[in-house]
């Protein structure tokens, strides 16, 4: 069908607010999200409506009660991703109050939501760091260049993720996000290098 548009936009978890802004902008331009995803999203073309979008992260929900609470405040549930992100939309009005356009209306609950995924990402980061140190040590003590390069790749991933988390913490403290390595480049590049090494190890 020609009026369905698929976009292959990938966002890091720490860019979830940017994803919301991009969805709002797309809606203003006549592209209405119908299915959000981690690797691709589907939109339908319709310039007669405009929505605002919100993302929630929660892996432990009672689905019926969860949707009820959003629907009674005018949030239409769109879909959920496999890893616990939920997409909601509400028709846009010009005189909308800021609180009406947000699903988290106090800092504590917003931070609780962010902490849920930040904790998980922090664990992943520790894993990458450990792998990096182990591989690099192993590599320089004679295991060969392949292992050393793999160690460097894991180190690069660890730094990418750490910078993302740091930028999130800075934003929370009311500062600018600071320097981040785009996940959209860092991850594909790292996996290409790892696959290359596995296939043609040197």
């Amino acid at each position, binding site marked *: 069908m020609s009026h369905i548009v698929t976009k292959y936009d990938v966002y890091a978890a720490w860019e979830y607010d940017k994803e919301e802004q991009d969805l709002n902008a797309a809606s203003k331009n006549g592209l209405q999200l119908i299915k959000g995803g981690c690797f691709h999203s589907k939109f339908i073309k319709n310039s007669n409506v405009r929505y605002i979008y919100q993302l929630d992260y929660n892996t432990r929900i009672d689905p019926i009660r969860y949707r009820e*609470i*959003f629907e*009674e*405040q005018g949030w239409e549930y769109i879909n959920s991703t496999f890893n616990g992100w939920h997409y909601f939309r509400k028709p846009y009005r010009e005189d909308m109050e800021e*609180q009406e356009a947000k699903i*988290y*209306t*106090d800092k*504590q*609950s917003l931070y609780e939501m962010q902490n849920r995924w930040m904790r998980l990402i922090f664990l992943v980061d520790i894993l990458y760091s450990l792998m990096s140190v182990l591989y690099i040590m192993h590599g320089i003590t004679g295991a060969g260049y392949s292992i050393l390069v793999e160690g460097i790749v894991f180190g690069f991933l660890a730094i990418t993720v750490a910078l993302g988390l740091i930028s999130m913490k800075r934003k929370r403290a009311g500062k600018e996000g600071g320097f981040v390595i785009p996940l959209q480049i860092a991850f594909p590049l790292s996996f290409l290098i790892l696959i290359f090494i596995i296939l043609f190890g040197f």
Partner: protein
Amino acid sequence: MKIRNEPLTESYYYILLCLYNKPNHGYGIMQDTEKLSGGQVVIGSGTMYGATSSMMNKEWIREKLSQNPDDKRKRLYELTPLGKTVLEEEIKRLKRLIDGSEIVIRGGLL
């Protein structure tokens, strides 16, 4: 069970307060909160889901199905005896704060 004495957030406080006299549904809690706070406190859906889930875990509130056939919203929340104590303790704590503040402001102490 020992009752935690740490301050409640405004959202938690208003949710408990809106259930003090009778069970209420989520939307009712939101509307009553807005009214009681003169429009200052709005409880968004994400905040409401998180707060109600957490307070159900702590057994401060529980779900109750409405028996009224005219009720469009069947899911009500009600205060448990523990939740009632938590709220009353918090009101006492807040009152102490206000009483102390007024004494100081009127120059009575310090």
